[in-house]
């Protein structure tokens, strides 16, 4: 079968499984009626609301209804905001994407030079420091780093705005916060795949042609590590989006993360479902794009 179509078709069962997982969670979470009504609402009111929301139906009926609605693009209304959950989520998506992309760029800017550098100087003190730095980047919890960056760059040095979304400068600190952790992972991966590549025969060939080390490393070796790098970026999308949950909270960044955390706290399950679906869809699409990119990056890869 045509590979691309096959990959796209594969998304469908995946989204279904995800919807199922989330729905089960929501179902188990119990009903939100209690939160919808005043604390001392009469029993009948509770019952009426339950019935009107269809919460009395058996699981499969509820799930079926959910799926049917979902297929029509209806993820239900947010209890908290009384609005269509999906449009609330989509409203916020650009902010999260902006942060995510900026973080990836930060990560790339840190990881590529650092990874290549430490791979060419394997086991030197530079390598050790770079590895240490990378590990450190991974070891620092996002929220701690974020708060520290605010204290340093905003409060003490008064260089950058503290929080919120707006101009480019607002993006810097959150992007660094989030980017560092990803950079750590990326650096380590680039280093190891560079090491792998550098030991390949064609590198020896390139050297035997009398090419400068720079060309050998950046042209011949690095080009070949792009496939793993793209893979890791794609795989990191998930971690990245996860990281935005924390980073957005610290920086009061008005993205999906904030919405989602609030939604979980307030049992606003329509939003939780819509959020998870959107995020999952995004992650899947990123991975699909990565898959297609492989072909561009590595002419050997032609899918069956």
């Amino acid at each position, binding site marked *: 079968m045509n590979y691309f179509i096959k990959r796209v078709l594969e998304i469908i069962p995946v989204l279904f499984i995800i919807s199922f997982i989330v729905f089960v969670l929501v179902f188990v979470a119990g009903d939100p009626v209690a*939160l919808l009504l*005043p604390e001392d609402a009469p029993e009948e009111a509770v019952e009426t609301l339950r019935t009107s929301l269809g919460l009395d139906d058996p699981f499969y009926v509820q799930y079926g209804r959910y799926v049917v609605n979902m297929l029509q693009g209806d993820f239900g209304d947010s209890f*908290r905001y009384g609005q269509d959950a999906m449009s609330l989520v989509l409203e916020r998506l650009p902010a999260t994407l902006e942060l995510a992309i900026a973080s990836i760029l930060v990560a790339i800017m840190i990881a590529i030079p650092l990874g290549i550098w430490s791979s060419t100087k394997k086991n030197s003190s530079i390598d050790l420091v770079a590895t240490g730095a990378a590990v450190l980047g991974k070891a620092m919890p996002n929220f701690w780093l974020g*708060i520290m960056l605010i204290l340093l760059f905003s409060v003490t040095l008064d260089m*950058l705005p503290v929080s919120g979304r707006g*101009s480019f400068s607002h993006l810097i600190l959150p992007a660094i916060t989030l980017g560092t952790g990803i950079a750590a992972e990326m650096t380590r991966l680039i280093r190891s795949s560079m090491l792998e590549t550098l030991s390949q025969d064609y590198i020896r060939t390139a050297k035997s042609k009398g090419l400068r080390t720079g060309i050998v490393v950046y042209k011949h070796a690095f080009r070949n590590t792009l496939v793993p790098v793209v893979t890791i970026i794609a795989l990191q999308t998930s971690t990245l989006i996860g990281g935005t949950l924390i980073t957005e909270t610290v920086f009061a960044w008005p993205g999906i993360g*904030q919405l989602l955390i609030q939604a979980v*706290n307030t049992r606003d399950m329509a939003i939780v479902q819509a959020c998870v679906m959107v995020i999952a869809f995004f992650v899947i699409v990123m991975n699909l794009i990565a898959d297609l990119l492989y072909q561009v990056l590595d002419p050997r890869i032609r899918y069956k």
Partner: protein
Amino acid sequence: DKDSEGDAEDTNPGKAETGDENDRTLTIAIGADMVTFDVHDHINTSTEAIHVNMFNYLVKRDNETGEIVPDLAESFENIDDYTWEFKLKEGVTFHNGDELTSADVKYSLERVAYGEELRDYTNYNQIKEVEIIDDYTFRIITHEPEPVLLNRISRIASGILPSKYIEENGFDHFLENPIGTGPFQFVEWVRDDRIVFEVYDDYFGGKNPDWDKLVFRIIPENSTRVSELLTGGVDIAVNVPPADWERVENHEGTYLAQETSNRTLMIFLRSTEGYPTSDQRVREALDLAIDNGAIVESLLGGAGVPTITRVAPGNFGFAEHLYDTYNYDPERAKELLEEAGYPDGFEMTFHSPRGRYLQDAEIAEMVAGMWAQIGVTANIEFMEWSNFVELRNAKENKDAYLLGLGNSMFDAANALDYYSATRFEGETDYRNDELEELLAAAMSNMDPKERSEQYVRAQEIIAEDVAHIVLHQESINIGVSERINYTPTMDEMIYVETITKK
């Protein structure tokens, strides 16, 4: 280096908001997003704190005198035990230009009085009907004699909505594009980010002289909110945690504004048969074990008043001799435990919300620590607010839980309502027949003096019974920029009208 300084200036619009051109914008950082513009469907103080700037009540409480004074109303009058007559100010307009009439009042009050599904229903269902006399005159008729009607309609859910606008466009449209009669009109609400208002030129109280624009920014993380204040990103930051008071106070350009709130932190104990806490001696012992003063000192930086009653000064029915004092006697507590048959203490479960009240989790941990000293092991279970609410609704709470309650009516009726047997049946199961009678009598007693005495007596009974352990009255702690004058009010509302430029 020069470059970077230059950069910093023009890449710092957060700062720029306090710059010249933004001089007329007031930015307030709050911890949680507003819930809704449906004034009747929330029980959320911080949401109301925003609403008060775009809606008005018929009457309002004067924060200095504690008296209830007219707002939208020109005057009001108690006709009989069941009826109040109001006259509206003339020429009050909604933000769309429509004039306020009795019809708007009828629509607003009856919506909540009849709307069972609305969260504020129980505080308004005492109203039987709003009877329109003419465009500016109407009567509020209650089911029973209602001594606290004025208090009821000067708080959450008392905002008057534009009935014509809503009828024409539907309520959903109103929620998206709300209008009111207040000094500021709605511009946009970017959820979880900001709510923006601009000044309303035709405000019946006169256009605000200082501010053209009002921005509420939602910044959930405490340290971020404080940092924004310190760097000048916002003018006001609410809920500054005690750890940062000194920073805010000592920082050039900011100060800390404090006020005691109308909120009291309490520990609710199960009086249900079978729980150790059903024994009054045990409850008293638990109370005696807690050093309220130490909590206020070490966790709240001294801001907060230890108390034995939850009715605070300024409220109708305040019992002064129970206020600003506490019982602490661990030795006696141990004796009481022994008398009650727990010489070696016992183990109990203690639920606490986290992040809801000032230092709530810390307080819970400290209380548990103090109980440990008298041999009682309290296993704390922290809960997210929604889970906590659910737990209580399901009446699955165990021996004790921590709860802070405010009193937006500023009347003991609202506060002591919590001790009637029906209110907490299955949840705390506290019951005292004498108290029942007292409360019932007070409920519809139209004689203020007698009513007040009844409430004071009720508080004494509650204290003796240790129905709940009362910890302290909370403080409101707000970080403010030096460029403005702001004094917080006990009701936790943020009246921008009272905020002026220096």
